[in-house]
């Protein structure tokens, strides 16, 4: 295999990886702060994409602005959902909070996905490109949309990092993710920040959906695979680590691409790509459960 081939596959893997990371970052946030596994994340991503599509179709807004609108809509919507369904997480009457969150988000996913088929119709839709055309570098061909998605995604993730490390609200979020009780002691309203975190997580998922729509098209079940990718990334990067998500996302994108590219049996290479990503995840869980950058002590308090 030539170096050129390797370069092309690796470069594509990196671009796709950043896109995966954007989806995963929302899961990381929700997981580290609400301590729940959000199985409906893929469907929030799907809703964000559709929202942006309809905003472009019916309000005529440019795609980037539509993305912001979708983020806003999902932010609000998610907080409403959180208030409606997740508040038992905070009362002491709930015994097993981990499972509760899992199950409720299962139910949510079921509801959202199947309602989407009815509401949006089953046929795939595609909003117009952010920037039509492609960039070429030798044999490497990357569509502008992918670069935009990767770039904007990176900006959003870095923005989130900045927010969490440099602003008061972000630091409060971080505090809640480390220890809810201690955060309460210093006067942080954990309940409010939980809703806030869920909203931000959903907004990031919506952004991902809007960015990705021109690349992969919109379909009601488009969130199924990204959901699994998101979990692989969250574990690989370390639950609770936003910067870990970026690295892990790129790592996942690379491993999938390189597996498809080089696995000796061409008939099976592509078919087992997703299984490979999951296998990497499982190996990490056995030998290094805190992932690359995660904190060791993540437990319900």
């Amino acid at each position, binding site marked *: *295999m*030539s170096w050129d*081939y390797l370069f*092309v*596959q690796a470069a*594509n*893997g990196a671009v*796709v990886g950043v896109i995966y990371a954007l989806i995963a970052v929302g899961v990381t946030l929700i997981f580290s702060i609400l301590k729940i596994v959000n199985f409906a994340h893929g469907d929030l991503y799907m809703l964000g994409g559709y929202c942006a599509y309809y905003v472009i179709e019916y309000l005529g807004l440019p795609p980037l602005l539509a993305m912001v609108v979708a983020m806003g809509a999902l932010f609000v919507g998610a907080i409403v959902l959180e208030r409606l369904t997740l508040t038992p997480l905070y*009362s002491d*009457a709930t015994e097993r909070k981990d499972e509760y969150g899992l199950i409720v988000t299962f139910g949510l996913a079921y509801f959202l*996905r*199947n309602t989407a*088929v009815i509401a949006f*119709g*089953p*046929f*795939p*839709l*595609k909003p117009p490109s952010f920037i039509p055309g*492609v960039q070429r570098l030798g044999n490497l*061909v990357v*569509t502008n949309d992918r670069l935009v998605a990767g770039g904007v995604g990176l900006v959003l993730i870095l923005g989130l990092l900045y927010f969490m490390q440099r602003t008061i609200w972000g630091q409060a979020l971080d505090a809640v993710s480390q220890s809810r009780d201690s955060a309460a002691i210093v006067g942080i309203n954990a309940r409010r920040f939980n809703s806030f975190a869920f909203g931000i997580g959903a907004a990031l998922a919506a952004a991902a959906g809007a960015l990705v729509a021109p*690349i*992969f*098209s919109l*379909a*009601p*079940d*488009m969130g*199924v*695979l990204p959901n699994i990718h998101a979990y692989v990334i969250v574990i690989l990067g370390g639950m609770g680590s936003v910067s870990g998500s970026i690295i892990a996302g790129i790592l996942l994108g690379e491993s*999938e*691409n*390189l597996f*498809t*590219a080089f696995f000796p049996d*061409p*008939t*099976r*290479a*592509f*078919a087992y*790509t*997703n299984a490979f990503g999951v296998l990497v995840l499982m190996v990490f869980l056995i030998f290094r459960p805190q992932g690359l950058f995660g904190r060791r002590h993540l437990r319900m308090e």
Partner: protein
Amino acid sequence: MRIARPWRVSAKLAVLIGGIVIASSQLVGTPAKAADPLKVGWVGPLSPPGGYAEGALMKQAAELAAEQLNAKGGVLGRPVQVVFADTRGKPEEGTAAAERLISQEKVVAITGEFHSSVFLAEMEVAHKAGVPIIAVDVWALSITAKGYPEVFRVAPNQALIATKYGDWIAAAGFKNVAVLFEKTDGGQSARDVLLPVLDKHGVKYEVVGADPNSTEFTAQIERFKSHQPPFDFFMTAYSEAGAYPMISQSHTLGFAPSPRTGIANSGGPAVDPTFWKNVGEAGKYLVTEIVGLPKNAWNDKTKAFVAAYRKKYNQPPSPQAIENYDAMLVLADAIERAKSTDGKAIVAALEKTDITLGRGRYTFSTGKDPDWAYHQFMNAPVALVQYSKVGQEAEDAPIVWPRNIADVKYTYLKPGQ
């Protein structure tokens, strides 16, 4: 805060849920039933993980058929009522749906289905109960090969479709084909029939299986591109939503369609309503199959159906829709001739079907050689078309195969020509 006695909460919740269920039944209620409706069952995927896009099209066609039949006074003087069952692409749902339709709803016959594995489960139930079941868009050979008298098929099957692709690929002069199939019953059977035909013609190929949920094919396409000798054709058997990004990516990355490499997609998405919106330019020069009559052979029935479908649903009918519509009419015709709703009588009448509808003259073979010919609509039209313009509708696309109905001189239009 003391929680209320749990069983009271549970009881209240149960009542609440019961109330919601009953209340919504009023909203989603079935239309008012006139005197003694003739119930026909419909099975197919309407939600994930099944092929819900095609299922929706089939459902629409069945509804249109029922509407038109009822406008003319129904069947045997009774209004036709179609009872729909969502089978989601899962065999156990198929069994449950078939059982419910037969034992509970007491349908006189069943039509539909898009997934072979589900139909295989459904037909067992129908066979045990002696209820006729018409396969609308399932292509597995074993469906008719099993020899159940209740089973009839209006769709072509893989032997008829994939064979055409194989023959056409050879005739068009391709020597080195990249085959990508989706890991579903449809994709698998396409591969199983296509490869031996390619072998017969001495065409070389490489086969790749893909997860039906995939949307990212870049790595695989780059791998195809790096193959030596270069592939001159990209044959895809892929029916899920990912087909669109696949075709777009293949085109953007310069693989196919391109002057060097052609592309075909079998399975349905290339003729679905949002095809062009999703793939744009990448769809030009793509080859796909249509399982209705080619436009130059349309008879009055075809034209009437297409017009009615367009009027009601604002889209051109897909092949699956045409098949489902015709299946309903074939059934109605058989019931009228049988003058009865008894299963055996309908089966006997179906065997004698000889009616011309939108897809041509319907007859069912009663021979068993080959074994899949039994109760198969042998003359099911299948044609391969190649899009020559962006935004072109499938019915207008030039037919390239079989040559006796082709309406262009070339067998394959190379991009750039």
